């Protein structure tokens, strides 16, 4: 029998010290320390607010398979995404090898149950390539981060220090694991080969294969030493890495599986003020929203732990793009830094101060348009809108509301619309003689019944320029044979932004008035041309008939033949459709408006690069129109430029707020005459047969 290499379980250092003792003590210390660290890290989650994340298990398992295991959001950033998928898959594959390696240290030739036969050979073949790909991915990633430095990783001065060193260091640790694991195996195989043992089949060009070739001429004692040395390098690196993970952005290696499992499964809605507290019990709550660190829910705390600092949220954030003082990435990073500071690894836990004075600023929290681009992008399922709303609830409760927003909020309280206009004038758009000759709109608050309620909402009811949307919607519904009416003076603002700006009790008030008025009419469905109203009625209100956006009705009626459209009246124009956040991202209505536009024969339509779930917010709706942010440019201006780049000269929107913002932006961008903004209802009405 050929002599074989001595493994760490039998080796004696300097001829007398059994290395198995080291191999046994290292994991004991490593796992003990890890348990302690995790206990300290879990402490803030236990003190946090409740969160209801154990429902919808089916959807959660689906997210786990698609978002976590399938890494489906990663390739949205192609290079970084593919590198991550390689490293992630490598980690999953090598976790088995690493576990058995730890045990080999004190049990010679240990093989995990089931890995003895063919499965073991197949696994070894795969894991050799896995280690190789992980190493290559790490090198590319390190070069990319350390030398090319993509802009989205930069840390602006006001947000703290650069994170490149940590990132490159961790890539170094991972590389060390890959190299030491491969050398450990290669040294054994080279030793056996030198002693004339039968050749193993090795994955060609894998790390082990390369290292074995390189070591083929090495003396036996060097191979023996290397074998033991690389074993302990791997063991040390492994347990160091395990305990280093919870100290920073690589915590996601541990938390991601939980974070994705517990991520948001419903879209468009806002979390209740406190889980387990019904709307009727809200008055009994001592405090509202997030004021201190522990007011966040445990899932939101887990979000802070899970952030990998990849910067995709901020890269997509329109507020960040226009230079508002908001970068979602740092909403998370600042909170994580505070958790680490307030919950140190040993000693006393510190009390949190008011967050909007300590780590956040009021303007930062008001800057968010709740467009949802950040959440759509996050590969880890981290949430922002609910956190922003919770922070705003806290600010509203403390009276910290800018004067520009106090006025419309007070008007909403007194008159049910942010402009302070009279209730009795809400239906005035339908009352002119000229319009009544074309179309009669039933006011269900006065008399009459209808199948369908057209919910107009405030801006379309009162804004001179937007009232056209109401009139056109009425004409389209009429033409399509829909029996509809409006709520007239009984309609209040839908409160989509009232809720999202943190004025919960005012929203509750508007919601119950609208709900009562709507149910009173006995309608079977609701239609609206305002995506913000659409979202609130569909996702925030309870117990209403089904809600549709006018674009869905138009698409359906075209399909059924109830509506037919003429050929394009302006065939020389190039149209582009801008997805409103509250129609697209929050409610998944992407196709209906496009289908309707494409039903116009001869209409030329191009797509924006940022479209569908990557649509770029126009500047925000509802109360956001009243807020005066600090910013370098307007979101709408960037959007208009994007449309111009796409070669379009007509931007079609399906939201009154988008229309306002884009109309203004065209003027600000100096593109009057070149570009125009057109509401979806205008395009359809122009082409009605």
């Amino acid at each position, binding site marked *: 029998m050929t002599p074989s290499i001595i493994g760490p379980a039998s080796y004696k250092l300097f001829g007398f010290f059994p290395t198995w003792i080291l191999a046994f003590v290292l994991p004991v210390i490593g796992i003990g320390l890890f348990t302690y660290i995790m206990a300290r890290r879990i402490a803030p989650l236990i003190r946090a607010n409740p969160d209801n994340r154990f429902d919808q298990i089916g959807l959660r398992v689906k997210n786990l398979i698609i978002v976590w295991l399938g890494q489906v959001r990663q390739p949205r950033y192609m290079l970084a995404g593919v590198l991550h998928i390689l490293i992630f898959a490598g980690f999953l594959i090598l976790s088995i090898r690493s576990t058995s390696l730890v045990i080999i240290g004190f049990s010679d030739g240990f093989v995990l149950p089931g890995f003895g036969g063919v499965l073991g050979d197949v696994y070894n073949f795969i894991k050799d390539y896995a280690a190789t790909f992980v190493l290559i991915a790490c090198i590319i990633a390190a070069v990319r981060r350390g030398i090319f430095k993509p802009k989205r990783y930069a840390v602006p001065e006001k947000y703290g220090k650069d994170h490149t060193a940590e990132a490159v260091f961790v890539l170094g640790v991972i590389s060390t694991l890959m190299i030491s694991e491969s050398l450990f195996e290669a040294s054994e195989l080279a030793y056996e080969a030198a002693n004339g043992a039968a050749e193993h089949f090795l994955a060609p060009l894998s790390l082990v294969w390369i290292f074995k070739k390189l070591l083929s001429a090495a003396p036996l004692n060097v191979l023996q030493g290397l074998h033991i040395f690389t074993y302990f390098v791997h063991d040390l690196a492994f347990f160091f890495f395990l305990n280093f993970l919870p100290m920073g952005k690589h915590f996601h290696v541990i938390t991601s599986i939980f974070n994705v499992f517990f991520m948001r499964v419903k879209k468009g809605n806002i979390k209740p003020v406190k889980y387990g507290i019904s709307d009727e019990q*809200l*008055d009994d709550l001592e405090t*509202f929203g997030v004021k201190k660190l522990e007011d966040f829910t445990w899932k939101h705390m887990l979000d802070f732990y899970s952030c990998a600092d990849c910067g995709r949220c901020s890269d997509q954030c329109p507020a960040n793009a226009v230079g508002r003082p908001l970068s979602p990435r740092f909403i998370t990073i600042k909170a994580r830094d505070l958790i680490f500071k307030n919950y140190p690894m040993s000693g006393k836990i510190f009390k949190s101060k008011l967050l909007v004075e300590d780590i956040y600023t009021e303007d930062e929290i008001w800057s968010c348009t709740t467009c949802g681009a950040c959440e759509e992008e996050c590969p880890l399922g981290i949430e922002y809108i609910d956190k922003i709303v919770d922070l705003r609830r806290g600010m*509203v*409760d*403390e*009276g*910290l*509301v*800018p*004067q520009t*927003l*106090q*006025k419309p*909020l*007070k*008007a909403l*309280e*007194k*008159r049910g619309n942010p402009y*302070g*206009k*009279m209730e*009795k004038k809400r239906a005035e758009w339908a009352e002119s003689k000229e319009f009544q000759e074309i179309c009669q709109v039933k006011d269900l608050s006065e008399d009459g019944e209808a199948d369908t309620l057209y919910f107009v909402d405030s801006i379309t009811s009162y804004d*001179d*320029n937007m009232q056209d949307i109401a009139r056109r919607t009425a004409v389209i519904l009429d033409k399509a044979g829909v029996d509809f009416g409006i709520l007239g003076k009984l309609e209040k603002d839908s409160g989509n932004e009232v809720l999202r700006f943190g*004025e*919960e*009790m*005012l929203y509750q*008030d508007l919601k119950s008035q609208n709900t009562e008025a709507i149910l009173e009419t006995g309608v079977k469905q609701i239609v609206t041309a305002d995506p913000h109203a659409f979202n609130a009625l569909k996702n925030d209100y309870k117990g209403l008939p089904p809600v549709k956006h006018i674009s869905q009705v138009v698409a359906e009626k075209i399909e059924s033949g109830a509506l037919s459209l003429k050929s394009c009246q302006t065939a020389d124009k190039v149209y582009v459709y801008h997805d409103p956040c509250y129609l697209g991202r929050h409610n998944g209505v992407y196709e209906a408006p496009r289908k309707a536009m494409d039903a116009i024969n001869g209409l030329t339509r191009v797509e924006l690069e940022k479209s569908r779930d990557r649509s770029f917010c126009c500047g925000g709706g509802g109360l956001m129109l009243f807020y005066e942010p600090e910013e370098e440019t307007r979101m709408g201006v960037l959007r208009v430029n994007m449309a111009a780049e796409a070669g379009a000269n007509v931007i079609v929107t399906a939201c009154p707020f988008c229309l306002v913002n884009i109309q203004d932006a065209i003027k600000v961008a100096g593109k009057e005459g070149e570009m125009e903004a057109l509401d979806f209802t205008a395009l359809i009405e122009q082409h009605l047969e």
Partner: protein
Amino acid sequence: MEILVCVKRVPDTAENEFELNSAGNDLDRDDLVYSVNEWDNYAVEEAIQIVDKIGGNVTVVTVGDDESEEVLRREMAMGANNGILLTDDAFEGSDGKGIATILKAEVEKGKYDLIMTGAQADEGAGQVGGMLAAMLDLPYASLVNKIEPGEGKIKVGREIEGGNQEMNEIELPCVVSIQTGINEPRYVGIRGIRKVASVEIPEKGASDLGVDASAVGEAGAKTKRVDYFVPDLGDGAEMLEGSTDEIITALIEKLKAKGGL
């Protein structure tokens, strides 16, 4: 510091469309919404900030009917400690001097270091602060846009025409009238108001205050409103009509025609 802030309930200019009543002597008040006078709101915020800094109590007081309680609650939701409603049929129709007389009686019931009013009210004449100070024989600072509290005296600032700032020292107790912009009043939502919904607000009438009913109200008013109207368009004034766009186009043309653009 014990601070009394005098507040008034007024029709909200931002949320109403004003029309004359059929008699032509007042607004048509049927469909109006009311709120606290904007200047008074700044005064209450300033009082709360002073008390937050150096301790004490803020009391808000108003002369009005039952419905005026709503504005007291709103100010208490902001953080005022106490509210007092001065109400009596005899107070109805008071002129500025009548209101000052009623407030003077209440001020004398307490022991206040600082009495604040708004510089003026939305539909008022800016009389009460000065009259109240004179009746109480207290020093008075008007149009105050800055307050620095001190021992036995305070420093008050006032903006002078042209944007200059003046600072005056004034001995306590005193009366000051507060200008808007002195601070950023905090937001009060429905939740805040509900929290103070059950707090008792004492009501006081003429006899409680020891005010001679004939010296206040319509009976005591030496100034009387005789007319209320929308002025006729004068020469050179022209109302542009049409949609917003049409108005803008017409305005630009007019400016161009006169060489303004």
